[in-house]
């Protein structure tokens, strides 16, 4: 068992743990913290795969901005423990089987096609940040500019939405 594998399993276990905890916790703030755990472990996994830039972005943007936003909103709205209502019979009965089915299909597809993937390259062979930026500003420059526009729109939208009524 190589070191990479061990690290992988640890990080994977943490991620799954966080996800399960997200489901099981009753207070949204606890779910938020669990999600942060998931994100950090995923960042670790990215590092393991050699995608440093992405790992950094994950921590900075996701963990540092999005989750902070979530936590602030929870605080703002004074969210308490979840109410135990159960109006949807469909969700109660079909929820678990369907989720399992979905995961199962994807997993089955992955496993069935595992022979077709090329073996992973050595981690250095993919020079990440430089290649990434090259691609980003040549082939994907349009989407890149559009995303900046998207962010602008989102900012405006958020401001308009969250204004207090005068």
């Amino acid at each position, binding site marked *: 068992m190589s070191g990479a594998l061990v690290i992988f399993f640890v990080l994977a276990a943490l991620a799954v743990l966080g996800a399960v905890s997200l489901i099981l916790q009753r207070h949204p703030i606890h779910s938020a913290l669990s999600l942060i755990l998931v994100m950090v472990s995923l960042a670790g996994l990215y590092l393991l795969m050699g995608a440093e830039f992405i790992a950094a972005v994950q921590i900075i943007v996701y963990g540092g901005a999005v989750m902070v936003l979530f936590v602030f909103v929870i605080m703002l709205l004074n969210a308490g423990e979840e109410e135990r209502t159960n*109006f*949807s019979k*469909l*969700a109660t009965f*079909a*929820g678990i089987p*369907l*989720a399992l*089915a*979905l995961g199962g*299909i*994807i997993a*089955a*597809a992955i496993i*069935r*096609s595992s*022979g077709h993937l090329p073996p992973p390259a050595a981690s250095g062979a993919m020079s990440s940040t430089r290649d990434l930026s090259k691609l980003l500003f040549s082939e994907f420059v349009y989407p890149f500019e559009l995303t900046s526009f998207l962010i602008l729109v989102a900012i405006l939208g958020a401001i308009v939405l969250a204004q207090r009524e005068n």
Partner: protein
Amino acid sequence: MPILENLWIIPLLPLLGSAINGLFGAKWSKKSVNIFALGSTGLSFACALEAVREFLGYFETVHHGYVKHFVDWIVAYNDLRIAFDLQIDHLTVVMLLVVTGVGFLIHIYSTGYMAHEEGYYRFFAYLNLFMFFMLILILAANYVVLFVGWEGVGLCSYLLVGFYFLRHSAAQAGKKAFIVNRIGDFGFMLGMFLLFRSFGTLDFQTIFNQAATWPPDAMGQFGTLTIACLLIFVGATGKSAQLPLYVWLPDAMEGPTPVSALIHAATMVTAGVYVVARSHVLFTHAPTAMYVVAIVGCATAFFAATIGLVQSDIKKVLAYSTVSQLGYMFLACGVGAFGAGIFHLMTHAFFKALLFLSAGSVIHAMGGEQDMWHMGGLSKKIKITYICMLFGTIAIAGFPPFAAFFSKDQILFAAYNLPDAGKALYAVGLLAAVLTSFYMFRLVWLTFFGEKRYDEHHVHVHESPLNMTLPLMILAFLSLTGGWFAAPSLWGGKDYFAEFLSPVFGVAEAGGGEASASLEHWLSVVAVAAALAGLGAAIWMYNKKVERGTSTGLHKILYNKYYVDEIYQATIVGPLVWISRKLLWKAVDEGILDGVVNGLGTGARSIGDTLRHTQSGNVRSYAVWVVMGAIVIFAIIFWPILHPALFGGAR
């Protein structure tokens, strides 16, 4: 030969008159309407005379009928070619002169009779339209164009019988006329289809030339020709009011009297006889059909005469008389004496029109009264009308030298000579002649003699004006002289009328020389004796003070026309209406059709009602649906990878 090449002008003139009067006449004065109505009919008569003259000249050289092809109408591949062809031959000549001549006289009469009526212009528009269709009918050179005229005169009959449409009984009578005609027309159409199938064409010349070469059907054999002839006769039964489709004619008396004279005496009802005579080639090849025609004609003649014995409405008596006389014409055709049938058609046109117009004059004089039991003693007051009516009555009874003596005599003689059933037919026909004489003289006595049975203060009896009495006098003259064409045959000379028609019907039917000549003489004596018997009985019963008695027993049955209308109502009309109402309307239309359509609506609504439960408003349920959708999409996308493995096959 200008007119002959443009035969269409003869029917077209009345059509123009009808159109102009119909479209513009509402605002015009009576004089203007008269100009177009009388002018078009008169011109048509003049053109007809000229056409006859030209045709006779043409025939001298060519020796066959004149056919003119006009416009192709229906052309279906090469199978069916129907064109607006018109033809003229000797038979057409007779019909043409009768229709246009008598028609013109009746138009003149109508200017007086209808002078005080609403819708004056409408009357003449319809009357001219009728003339158009009738002329089309007799000038037609194929069955389809004839049928156009046939249907058209039926339509005009409906329009004119229901002329006083605000009166419920008149509207009903119009409908009855049209519908009963329609039943006959159905038979006629079937006959046409059969003829087309057998001969490939409906053109008269072609069919008759071909049929002449066919072997005749045996008696009792229902070959193609027999069935076709029977079907055509069904149509003739409807149009010419024979048993069992005569019921519309008495009701048609609801129309104005000139209409009764023109349509239901002189012209339209004779269309059936004309068709049978025109198709004589086919009929002579179908002895069974001829027998049927003769028997139906004879039976109708007798049947209608019995009903006419006891009627109290002056026009109804004449109506049943018409049915009876038409029976004589069909009897003639049925025994093979087509020429005699047409001869009687012509003389009947004269005296029946005369009788109807005189009756109209009486009604006009009595201010609208039609019931004979409210008349009486009019002979001194309306002399001209009385004399004309007397002429007509003497004619119809069959006294020489008036017209019908010759024509009726020929018919009875031909019937007598028919092998097998001829004597029986003759006997019934003779009996009908006795009855005819009786009820016609009864009419005269009740109307013109005896004590007056009306209130003189309410009814101012006055003679009709000249425009009404002039046609009466002309027709009276014709009723006297119209038969004289055939008179010379009585003393061994030629029957000019039969000779005139011989190019159409072949050489005269009577054969046999001396023995048959004396037989004919004896039979004519018997006929005159029959007429005298009727006259005597009428005088004995009615030349005294009479009152209307109560109607019982046989009288009641006859007065109620053997309850035939009621029987039809109960057996045919009633069930049909019931089926239409209960079955077709309630069950099929409302139940099934509406049910399906409404059911679709209700079904859609109930499906919607069921499906709306998916819109529960619960976001979590929606989330589940999203997941389900996602599963389906994933399954579709990953199917190539998943399915070989599912069944354990090789990758």
